[in-house]
């Protein structure tokens, strides 16, 4: 999922204080799962903003709503009947949702309430860790299902650097050396021979190195 965290309240207040009526918009997808921008977080932020603004002597009408997905135009279209009178939208979606809104509502200011972080997986309740950088040319089949691009600070493709000590990365003792993880996993799978195969230099064009990426499925695209 795409993970995110709420921006500091002070920053959000700066965004919304020039307006009299805003729409605070959540998203039911990734940001709900990582407890950053779902219906509950919309309620919490609306109350928090309302109280903080009240303290500073201003009063803003905050309309709350949560879409099934903010990154799909058909769901964004649901907002049309309710957007009348809204002066700005504060979106609790990831950056994709914010931009989808900005594209659709050209005359309305749209602000992000979240800082979008990374594509991650849940390690345990309340903990999310980066697992994928969307390089566009997946190597997990070679590396025992553990990604050296998302999980190695240097994105090394052929084994660890000299900073790997007792299975930990030199950047922090809390960070596993991913190449140690890969080696351990290949060993348990009996695939040690994979480790000695030299991976060629990675072509980063598929990872965004040649500009914004797009997928076009000819059979689906209209």
């Amino acid at each position: 999922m795409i993970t995110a965290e709420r921006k500091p309240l002070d920053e959000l207040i700066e965004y919304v204080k020039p307006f009299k009526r805003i729409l605070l918009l959540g998203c039911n997808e990734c940001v709900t799962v990582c407890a950053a921008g779902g219906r509950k977080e919309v309620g919490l932020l609306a109350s928090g903003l309302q109280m903080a603004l009240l303290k500073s002597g201003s009063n803003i009408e905050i309309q709350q709503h949560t879409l099934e997905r903010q990154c799909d135009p058909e769901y964004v279209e649901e907002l049309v009947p309710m957007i009348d009178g809204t002066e700005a939208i504060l979106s609790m979606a990831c950056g994709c949702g914010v931009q989808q809104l900005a594209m659709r509502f050209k005359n309305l200011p749209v602000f992000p309430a979240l800082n979008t972080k990374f594509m991650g997986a849940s390690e345990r309740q309340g903990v999310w860790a980066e697992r994928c950088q969307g390089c566009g040319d997946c190597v997990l089949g070679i590396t025992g299902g553990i990604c050296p691009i998302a999980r190695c600070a240097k994105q090394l493709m052929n084994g660890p650097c000299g900073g790997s000590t007792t299975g930990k990365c030199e950047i922090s003792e809390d960070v596993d050396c991913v190449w140690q993880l890969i080696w351990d996993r290949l060993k348990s799978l009996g695939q040690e021979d994979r480790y000695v195969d030299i991976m060629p230099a990675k072509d980063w064009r598929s990872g965004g190195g040649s500009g914004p990426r797009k997928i076009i499925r000819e059979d689906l695209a209209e």
Partner: protein
Amino acid sequence: MENFEPVIIAFCCHYCAYTAADMAGSQRLPYPANVKIIRIPCSGKVDALHIIKAFENGADGVYVAGCLEGDCHFKNGNEKAARRITYVRNYLEEIGIESERLMMVTMSAGMGYRFAQTATEITEKIRKLGPSPIKIAIAQ
């Protein structure tokens, strides 16, 4: 605000503090009428939204009363509640409300005296803190 009487919301677990409140009643132990009790199935059931809404609607103080450590009827709901309280306290500070206005307390079902004493102490503490800044802002 003269003659300030704080409004305090107490989220009380059915298996401990709520029964302790009953016990206080049976023992004829007085406690301040400022404390408005809301019965909940477990302290772990109290959501951040419940607490924030209480403050938004004019509460001067809020406390969550759960079971003693290791005694939660649902294993560890009280531990979850304690972590949530810490989280909401930080959010209150961000909003500009003193975090001392939100507390977590623990007791067993038999502790009628402790319930009454806690309610009295918290009421006094909130009385000293004065009206919540939200209440003051609404009044202005």
